[in-house]
C-alpha cells in the first residue's frame, strides 16, 4: 500500500458563472519517503490538489473522489480528525514566506506551537526543541533568534523557519507549493537542497509543486505534469523527461531547452490556458496541441501506461496519440 493514494479526485466551485472544475479526475500514488514533483501552469489545478489533500480548500469547494493517507480516507473526514493529522502527519509549506508567519508572535513560539499541540510538550521543552529545529534548517544562533519576530528575518530565512515548522513533528507527507518562487534566485537552490535533505532525514515523503520544470527535475524521483485540472503525463522523472510522450510535456521541455541554449527564436506554446468556466471538450490541451487529432476535442483521454521497462515504476500518459513503437 502506498503512503498516499489519490483516486478520481474532483474539485469544483459553484460560481455565478456556473460550476468551475479546477481538478478533473486526478489519480496518482506516492510511496513512503518518496518524492513527487507536480508541474503545470497556473490554473492547472496543482495548488488546488495540494489544498484538497490538506483539507484546506475554501468553504464552498465541492470535492469528490478519494484521498487516502496510510489507508485513512481524508475526504469526508471530520474537521477534528483533519486537525489531528495536519502538522503531525500532513504538512504544507506555502509560496510566500513573507506573509506566512504571524508577525505578532516570536518565531520560536510559532514552531513550539506545533510541538505542544501534537507531541504534548511543555512550553519549555517545545522552546528547546524549536531551537534545535532552527539550527537544523540553517538558522544561526538559534537560541537568540528564536525569540525574534518574523520581520527580523529575510525571505529565505523565513522559508527555512516554515520548513522547520512543517517538519517539526516528522510528518509522513510534506507538500511544498512553489516554495522558492518568491525568493531570490541565489537563495532558491539552497532552500530546495534544505528541503530535500531534511525530508530525507525525517523520512518524509515530499510533493513539490512548481511551474518550473527545471526546479523539479533535480529534486523529485517522480514527476506529474498537469494541465487544465487533469494529469497529462506521470512517471519516474528520468523517464518523463527523457522520453516525454505527451505533446504538452514535449513542448514544455522545448521551452526549457531554449532558455538554456540555442540561438533560434524562443519556442512558445501557442494559445492560452483554458477558461475553466468553459473548458474545451475532450482533452483540455487540444486547442494548443501541435499533434492534435480529430477526436481529441470529443473524448477525454484516460491515462494509459507507456511501455514498461523492467525494474522501473509505471509511466502513464493521457493522450490519444498512439506511441511509435
Amino acid at each position, binding site marked *: 500500500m502506498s503512503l498516499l493514494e489519490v483516486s478520481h479526485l474532483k474539485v469544483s466551485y459553484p460560481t455565478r458563472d456556473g460550476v468551475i472544475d479546477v481538478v478533473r479526475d486526478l489519480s496518482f500514488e506516492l510511496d513512503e519517503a518518496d518524492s513527487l514533483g507536480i508541474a503545470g501552469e497556473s490554473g492547472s489545478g496543482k495548488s488546488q490538489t495540494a489544498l484538497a489533500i490538506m483539507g484546506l480548500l475554501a468553504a464552498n469547494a465541492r470535492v469528490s473522489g478519494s484521498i487516502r493517507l496510510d489507508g485513512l480516507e481524508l475526504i469526508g473526514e471530520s474537521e477534528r480528525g483533519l486537525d489531528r493529522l495536519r502538522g503531525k502527519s500532513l504538512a504544507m509549506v506555502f509560496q510566500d514566506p513573507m506573509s506566512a508567519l504571524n508577525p505578532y508572535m516570536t518565531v520560536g513560539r510559532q514552531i513550539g506551537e506545533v510541538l505542544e499541540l501534537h507531541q504534548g510538550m511543555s512550553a519549555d521543552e517545545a522552546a528547546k526543541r524549536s531551537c534545535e529545529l532552527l539550527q537544523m534548517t540553517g538558522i544561526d544562533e538559534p537560541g537568540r533568534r528564536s525569540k525574534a519576530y518574523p520581520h527580523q528575518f529575510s525571505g529565505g530565512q523565513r522559508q527555512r523557519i516554515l520548513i522547520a515548522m512543517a517538519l517539526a513533528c516528522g510528518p509522513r507527507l510534506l507538500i511544498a507549493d512553489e516554495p522558492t518562487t518568491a525568493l531570490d534566485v541565489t537563495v532558491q537552490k539552497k532552500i530546495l537542497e534544505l528541503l530535500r535533505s531534511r525530508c530525507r532525514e525525517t523520512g518524509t515523503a515530499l510533493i513539490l509543486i512548481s511551474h518550473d520544470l527545471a526546479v523539479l527535475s533535480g529534486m523529485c524521483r517522480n514527476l506529474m505534469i498537469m494541465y487544465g485540472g487533469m494529469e497529462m503525463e506521470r512517471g519516474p522523472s528520468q523517464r518523463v523527461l527523457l522520453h516525454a510522450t505527451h505533446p504538452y510535456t514535449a513542448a514544455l521541455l522545448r521551452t526549457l531547452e531554449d532558455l538554456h541554449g540555442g540561438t533560434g527564436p524562443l519556442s512558445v506554446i501557442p*494559445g492560452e490556458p483554458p477558461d475553466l*468556466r468553459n473548458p*474545451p*471538450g475532450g482533452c483540455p490541451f487540444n486547442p494548443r496541441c501541435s499533434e492534435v487529432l480529430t477526436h481529441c476535442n470529443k473524448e477525454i483521454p484516460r491515462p494509459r501506461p507507456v511501455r514498461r521497462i523492467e525494474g522501473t515504476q509505471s509511466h502513464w500518459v493521457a493522450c490519444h496519440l498512439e506511441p511509435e513503437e
Partner: protein
Amino acid sequence: MNKHGANDTVGGRSLWQNAGERLRRNKAAMFSLWLLLFFVVLVVAGPWLAQHDYTQTNLSLGSTAPSLAGGHWFGTDALGRDVLARTLAGGRISLLVGLVATLVSLLIGVFWGAVAGYCGGRVDALMMRFVDTLYAMPFMFFVILLMVVFGRNILLIFVAIGAINWLDMARIVRGQTIGLRHREFIQAATLMGAGTLTIIVRHVIPNLLGVVVVYVTLTIPQVMLVESFLSYLGLGVQEPFTSWGALVNQGALEMETAPWLLVFPALFLAGTLFCFNFIGDGLRDALDAKSDEDGW
C-alpha cells in the same frame, strides 16, 4: 452549455461595471438607495406637496395630534404649525448642510491630500504634519465656539462643519495618491512629458474617484449629525429656518405630551442617516475586489 470555444474571448467587464453589479446585488444598499431617493424627492418637493406653509402659525390649532382628516398629517406644534411641512422644510436644510459641508471638506481634503501625496518629500511631510497637529484638536468645541461667537450664520455653519472633516479625506487621498504615483501608467504619462498638474487632474483624480465616492457617502451622515447636534444645543440654524436637529430638540421637550413632534423628524433624520451609511458601506464593499471564499 459550452457555447463558446476555447478561442473565443470572454467579454471583459470594467472595474466600474463589476462594482455596479456587486452593488446591485446588495439588497440593503439598493433598498437604502431607493428610500433615500424617496426622502430627497419628498423633501425637495415639500413646498408643493405640503398643504400648509411651514412658517404659518395657527394658535387655535396648537399641538394637535396627527390626523388624515384634519389636514395635518403629522400633527401640529405648540404654535399650530404643520409638522409635516416643518419636517420637510427641516429636511431641506439638513440635507443642504450635509451636501455643502461635505463638498467643502471634499474640496479641501482632496486638494490637500492629492498635492501632499503627489509631491512627496518635504512638502508632503510638512502638509501631513499640519494634518496631524489638527487631528488632536477638539473640533466640535471650536465649532460651538464659532457659533456662539459669530452668531448662527448658515454660511458659517457650512464652512465650519466642512472644516472638521477634511482631515480624514486628506489622509485617505494622500494614501491613494502615493499608491498611484508608483503605478506604471503614471510613470508612463510622466515619460510622455505630461506636466504635474495635468497628471494630477487627468490620471490621479479619476482613480481616486472610487475611494472618494465612498467617503463622501459616509461623510454626509456625519456632517448631518454634527449639524443636528449643534441645532440640538440651540446653536444651529436660526428661525425661520429649521432643521431636523432643531425639530428633534423641540420635540424632545414635549415628548410625553406630544410625541409626534419628536417621532417624525427623528424618523426622517435617523432614516436618512441609515440610508447613507448603508449605501456607503455597499459602495465600499462593491469597489473592494475581495472574494468571499476564504475557507472559513
